[in-house]
């Protein structure tokens, strides 16, 4: 789930560059092909997530994770105050930064999809909406890029999180140190939805 979404997002970003930057368009050309790839991967982008939550059995863990991500407590608010540095914090499976990242990207995918549809199938929308959608699409693209760079930077800074997302496992010690409130876990429960 994470990796198919990441791959599609990566394709969207890479194809967006020559569509947006005039000098890159001039060098690379093949605009039509790029548009097709960009639109295609953009429309597919929400699909892995939807499949991921839909399964009665296989969607169980992801639904459970999303529920944790949805609910914020006072702990999460204090996490943001100190950007995770407060030693008294006892985050659960996901800290507030990870929660915010997930929700932001989730909402952004929806908005990029809506504005992208207006830009591509423009003829049923008023001209002012097309201009508005283009503006929102561009602006949010920059925000998404910044957030994803942050997401990857923090992942690299904490290599155990990369192991967690690739293998679905974290060591008991690491979990106790970084996610002290994350308990009640028999081993098989810790498998991430990939």
């Amino acid at each position, binding site marked *: 789930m994470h990796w198919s979404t990441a791959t599609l997002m990566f394709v969207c970003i890479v194809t967006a560059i020559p569509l947006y930057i005039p000098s890159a368009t001039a060098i690379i*050309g093949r605009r039509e092909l790029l548009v097709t790839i960009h639109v295609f991967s953009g429309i597919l982008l929400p699909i892995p997530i939807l499949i991921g939550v839909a399964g009665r059995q296989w969607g169980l863990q992801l639904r459970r994770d999303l529920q944790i991500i*949805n609910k914020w*407590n006072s702990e999460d608010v204090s996490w943001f105050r100190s950007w995770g540095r407060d030693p008294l914090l006892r985050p659960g499976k996901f800290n507030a930064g990870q929660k*915010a990242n997930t929700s932001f990207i989730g909402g952004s995918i929806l908005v990029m999809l809506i504005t992208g549809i207006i830009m591509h199938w*423009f003829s049923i929308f008023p001209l002012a909406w097309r201009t*508005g959608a283009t503006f929102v699409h561009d*602006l949010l693209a*920059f925000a998404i890029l910044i957030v994803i760079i942050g997401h990857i930077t923090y992942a690299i800074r904490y290599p155990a999180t990369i192991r967690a997302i690739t293998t679905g496992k974290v060591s008991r010690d690491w979990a106790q140190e970084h996610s002290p*409130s994350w308990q009640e876990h028999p081993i098989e429960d810790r498998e991430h939805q990939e």
Partner: protein
Amino acid sequence: MDFGSTRNRLNRADVDDQLSKPIGRRIIIGIVALGCAGIVFGESVQRVVGRAITKINPSGSGIASLFPGANTFRIYTVTGSLPSESTKAYTLKVGGLVNRPTTYSYNDLLAMPSVRLDKDFQCVTGWRVPNVHWQGVLLSHILDLSQVQPSAKAVLFKSFDGVYTESLTLDQAKRSDVIVAYEMLGDRPISSEHGGPVRLYVAPMYGYKSCKWLSEIEISDQVVPGYWENLGYDVNAWIGRSNGRSDAPVDGA
């Protein structure tokens, strides 16, 4: 985002804290609401942002022009690579239903009486570059020089990219805001990205009518749908009055 069926297996940290709030859902709803507001009201915001960026960065190039909302062109090509031709090698062929078929060089066009237009470039997909400076020759002047025959009804355009075509009715082609342009964006020759050395500029219509890399003008007895029109765009592409909408025209068309 309520996954009620799994509520019974929540994390301890969240169950413990009865004050927990569905912030995640609110973030998503908030972004979507902002996004939708942006679609509906973004045009006026973009106008303000675009004007501000133009004030800071009047040249319209460089890093500032990449900022979202900057009034910049997006470069469209329909072929694999960017078509390019030197002003020396450039020719414009005028033929079809005329008494005097002619081929003009770039310098021939420069020598003709020139007109100047400061008008918007509006793309059908939504982006717009306001107050672009255009300079060139009235298309009607070129038509007059070639002496259009009475049976003529339309003007067809061909691009030297080898693929792109466009057309106008003869009446549309004779308008005073339709020019064969050799300068745009300040007193600069048209770059190859923008369709240089010579392109068409049809001010009252969406950008796809303004054929880039113009190399041939053919006078015909009927309009032939061009490249985008074969893909579903309107042939009569009046800004704000075509392509699915009848909004108030952006420009006094």
